[in-house]
């Protein structure tokens, strides 16, 4: 019997500081045992527990795509004791990863559909996984038009800047990058909040699904825009955050009505969320 609580040992291959405030770093991790990598078979939208012996575990969305082989990536916000410790670790250090956990964006249903991705701030990590996954040459023909609205408070807080620039240059994905505000005279993208930019760019709801992930306030004001554009609740997909421990639906911590967010989620349609207690 595999022990679902036992983390796989991984080595930190590289650490990239993503943002100007240095609070967000992306960790590229390599499995010590190749068989563990094979067991860690995941889909965009899933998360894992990062483990530091002596400090504990934290649930973090997977930032890499299953189409990227040989490593997994996590972008970690420095907020608590485990994340602060991680931020001080170095390439070559050993840590643990347990997962993958939870459900994922419904890629089977999204096949043949247009996809609108709306993200804000740090929550863009699992959306990066989704974009890389859809843009993979083997997968790109499976999806229609791809629109991405991604916002941060100011340019220095945007994640994955090199990749954003590369996606900008492609003609098979429409990027709508925005910041709340900037005094940079060379800023060439949008200025404005995500809901406003979504409304302005007005991606068609025809044969389309929206995936939205970001701060609650951004989601709150973007949902009416999506409704106005014609997206019904069963075509708006979001991802919940919860304080999770076991990650496999046993410890009871992330219980939400009949669901455990760690196992039955974290991805839910707006339609499903409307049937659950509003406790998230």
């Amino acid at each position, binding site marked *: *019997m595999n022990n*679902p*609580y036992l983390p796989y040992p991984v080595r930190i291959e590289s650490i990239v500081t993503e943002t100007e405030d240095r609070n967000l770093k992306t960790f590229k991790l390599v499995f010590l045992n190749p068989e563990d990598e094979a067991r860690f078979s995941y889909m965009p939208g899933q998360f894992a527990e990062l483990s530091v*012996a002596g400090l504990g575990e934290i649930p973090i969305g997977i930032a890499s795509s299953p189409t990227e082989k040989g490593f997994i990536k996590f972008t970690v916000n420095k907020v608590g004791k485990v994340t602060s410790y991680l931020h001080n670790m170095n390439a070559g250090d050993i840590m643990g990863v347990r997962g993958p956990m939870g459900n994922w964006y419904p890629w089977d249903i999204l096949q043949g559909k247009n996809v609108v991705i709306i993200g804000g701030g740090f929550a863009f990590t699992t959306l990066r996984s989704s974009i890389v996954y859809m843009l993979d040459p083997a997968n790109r023909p499976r999806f229609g038009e791809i629109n991405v609205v991604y916002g941060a408070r100011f340019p220095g807080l945007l994640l994955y800047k090199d990749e954003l620039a590369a996606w900008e240059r492609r003609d098979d994905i429409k990027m709508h990058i925005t910041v709340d505000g900037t005094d940079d005279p060379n800023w060439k993208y949008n200025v404005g909040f995500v809901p406003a930019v979504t409304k302005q760019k007005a991606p068609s709801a025809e044969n389309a699904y929206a995936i939205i992930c970001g701060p609650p306030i951004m989601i709150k004001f973007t949902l009416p825009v999506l409704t106005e554009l014609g997206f019904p609740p069963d075509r708006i997909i979001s991802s919940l955050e919860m*304080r999770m421990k076991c990650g496999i639906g046993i*410890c*009871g911590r992330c219980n939400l*009505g009949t669901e455990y967010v760690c*196992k039955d989620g974290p991805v839910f349609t707006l339609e499903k969320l409307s*049937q659950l207690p509003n406790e998230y």
Partner: protein
Amino acid sequence: MSGAYISKNKLPGAITGLLGRYKVFGPVRRGRYHEFAEIRNAEDVDLAYRNTRLSPKGLFHPQGERMFQFSLAAGDPDKGILKEAPKDFSPRVILGIRPCDAKAFHLDDANFDTAAIKDPWWVKRREATTLIGLACNHPCSTCFCTSVGTGPFDASGLDAMLVDTGDGYVVEVLTEKGKAAVEAVSEWETAPTGSAEAIAALKKSAEESIGKQFDIKAVIDQDMLELFNGAFWEEVQFACINCGTCTFLCPTCWCFDIQDEVCGEQGDRLRMWDSCMFPLFTFHGSGHNPRSQKVQRVRQRFMHKLKYYPDKYHQGVACVGCGRCVSACPVNIDIRQVARLMSAGCVCPA
């Protein structure tokens, strides 16, 4: 062996027989209360107990348990890599467990032992354990097992069940595991004439002494969100002090936390019981807490037991009516009254 009988004066000999093949756990008096403990000496078992203060859930899901161990020593090639902590899964018998507490393990299986995910320690302990229960002739005033789908003589969670008929116990063997444990005992006699009638009378009397406290189907049939938004939660939560006693005593409260503990260069990853009554239970790293208010936490406990669990697993409520939360609550919150409020969907007098 079904229908076999053992005189009370021969019970210590029978337990000694079990001790030769199993670890044996049973009700033992500790001060004013009883608790389930490992038996070294057959005379320590007290089957005349009414109820234990703590449920025996800790025998499968310990209050504190070492999951993994690790080294943090510089130069150790395994530094920071977690290794499974050694555990004892040798065969054991839990003797004298009440039908309600045994049924609770069955309800908890829906959480710990599913087709998709298995808690390895829960599953191995369940496999290694034989439950020899003791029917409940004299339920307490706080018992309400008959209202939640079990009963004082409900053998459904047991491998064998003893019934106290006065001078001795009649045993009913229920599973292969139960048969093996019963056959480890050589003190069995033939049950006295009229035992079956005596047991039927004891069962009837025990069930009648409890009576039906509320209609659980009426609770389950309520709409989840209507219940969640019910005005009566304000009344339910008013006195609660979020002490967590109800959750720690409850045989079907399984929530736990995982924490690391380090001593010098050695460390352990532990899991400990936790409680939805505590504000930190759902406190996010971001500072957001979806259940920051007491009323939300109190509602969560009752909704989880009486609505979310039945809706998710379709095998009744996550409550066996043992009454521990009723008798030990320092502010007299009574789940029977809460169930009545939930089924009525309004604030009603008791």
